[in-house]
């Protein structure tokens, strides 16, 4: 669950990126965050990850009140969240398998669990045959699926994705969002930032539109795919 209460963010440069945002995303929700460039979408994501702190107001993520959360406890928060970036951020010197397994090693998971869990999520994103490949040997869509597997592997309560389809072929974007939808159906909350209106219109769901640091509208619309 993600909750914003009167949240404002002013960067040290003086830019007001967010202005008294109130927002609640319940467990199991799937929400698109849309809006023009510079509206404050990435700022919202950074708040959830506690990469930055709110200038005022309260942010609550998966039961953590981020204002009160100590630096030392930030890893505990992040272990409940899976992140997907626009630029994939895979480690080029590691294979697909290692890129995913790496997350579990970082959180000190048992070796036996790693050996069973990693192939499972790689299979889930349809990359079993590429497990031993390196990121440079994969297409953009495939790389983003690896990133998705990495976000999933720790079985997080929430996945946040900042323009996950921004760097890949529009046709492949549907595949990625389709995967996210599938993950959401298994109970994971998903917050996805995107610029692609076609994608939003096609899948439908909750749309949060941010403009100049404020929420312009926040509504649920029906997707065109469901009408077919």
């Amino acid at each position, binding site marked *: 669950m993600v909750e914003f209460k009167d949240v404002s963010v002013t960067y040290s440069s003086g830019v007001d990126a967010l202005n008294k945002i109130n927002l609640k995303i319940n467990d199991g929700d799937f929400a698109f965050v849309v809006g023009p460039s510079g509206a404050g979408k990435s700022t919202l994501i950074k708040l959830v*990850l506690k*990469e930055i702190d709110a200038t005022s107001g309260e942010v609550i993520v998966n039961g953590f009140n981020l204002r009160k959360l100590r630096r030392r406890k*930030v*890893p*505990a*928060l*992040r*272990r409940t*969240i899976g*992140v997907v970036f626009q630029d994939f*951020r895979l*480690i*080029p010197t590691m294979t697909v398998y290692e890129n995913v397994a*790496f*997350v579990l*090693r*970082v*959180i*000190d998971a*048992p*070796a036996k669990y790693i050996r069973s869990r990693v192939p499972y999520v790689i299979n889930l994103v349809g990359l079993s045959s590429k497990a031993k490949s390196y990121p440079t040997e994969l297409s953009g869509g495939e790389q983003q699926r690896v990133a998705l597997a*990495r976000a999933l592997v*720790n079985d997080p309560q929430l996945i946040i994705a900042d323009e996950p389809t921004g760097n890949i072929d529009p046709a492949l974007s549907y595949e990625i969002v389709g995967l996210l939808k599938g993950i959401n159906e298994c109970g994971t909350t998903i917050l996805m930032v995107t610029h692609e209106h076609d994608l939003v219109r096609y899948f439908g769901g909750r749309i949060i539109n941010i403009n100049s640091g404020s929420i312009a509208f926040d509504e649920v619309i029906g997707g065109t795919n469901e009408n077919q």
Partner: protein
Amino acid sequence: MKISSIRYLVHQGFKGIWKNRMMSFASFCIMLVSLLMVGISLLLALNINRIIGGIEDKSEVVVQIKDGCTEEQIDELKNKIGALPNVSTIEFYSKEKAWESMVKDMSDEEKELFHYADDNFLPDTFRLTVHDIKQMTQTTTQIDTIDNVESTRSPTELTDVLISIRRVLGIISGAIVVALIIVCLIIISNTTRASVFARRKEINIMKYVGAKNSFIRIPFFIEGMVVGLLAAAGALGLTMFAYDGVYSIFNDDFKLWSVLGVNNLYSFDDLFMPVTIAYAVAGALIGAVGTSFSTGKHLKV
């Protein structure tokens, strides 16, 4: 933390050394040379100190007793001087004994010459050693004021020189140690900086998936420590080799030293444990501390 995680982190540390092998090798060399210089200057200082200490222990104050003192007066004087806090040992040296030993050292011609001296013109003396050589001058001035003391003679000039040699030596070796430790820390922290930079993407991702800072740091820590320990091992080997060479020159070829009454050098067997421990601790510590300087600021994500 699980055994598998520890294995993983140690493995990552060694992998870091290999991936970064040019920098690792450079810092290994610089640490080796630095440790060696520190080690040699300390060993040198240690041995010079020992030699000077030997000379100092043998430097005596000679107290000349006024002519014509009775035995009781001499005893009383001995007690008085012996009671001074800085006086370590005091020994009476009679004029007869002094005469004997003087004659013994003479050549035959000199003996001939002295045969004509009708009287023992040498005085009765005390020979005393002091606890603290730095206060020797004060002590002799004190003794000078006591009744029945004719005069005192002490090797104050020599001891002054020895004292200042010791002081300068202490300052120089201290300065060398401090300077080289700083150089090592800078070098190691730069090596790690390169290593951290090479892996900044990885670190960034680790932060996002909830890695604790300690988990990110440990491989770099291990990397620095291993390089430090390797440099320490190298320095130890070279020191042992060089020291044995110097030691054998001083001990086998120049008996002169012992003739002069100077202490021998320490043998490396006596120094092996302290030197090994010092090198290992210094190497590991410098390696580990150096890395933590440079990892700190990369962890803020």
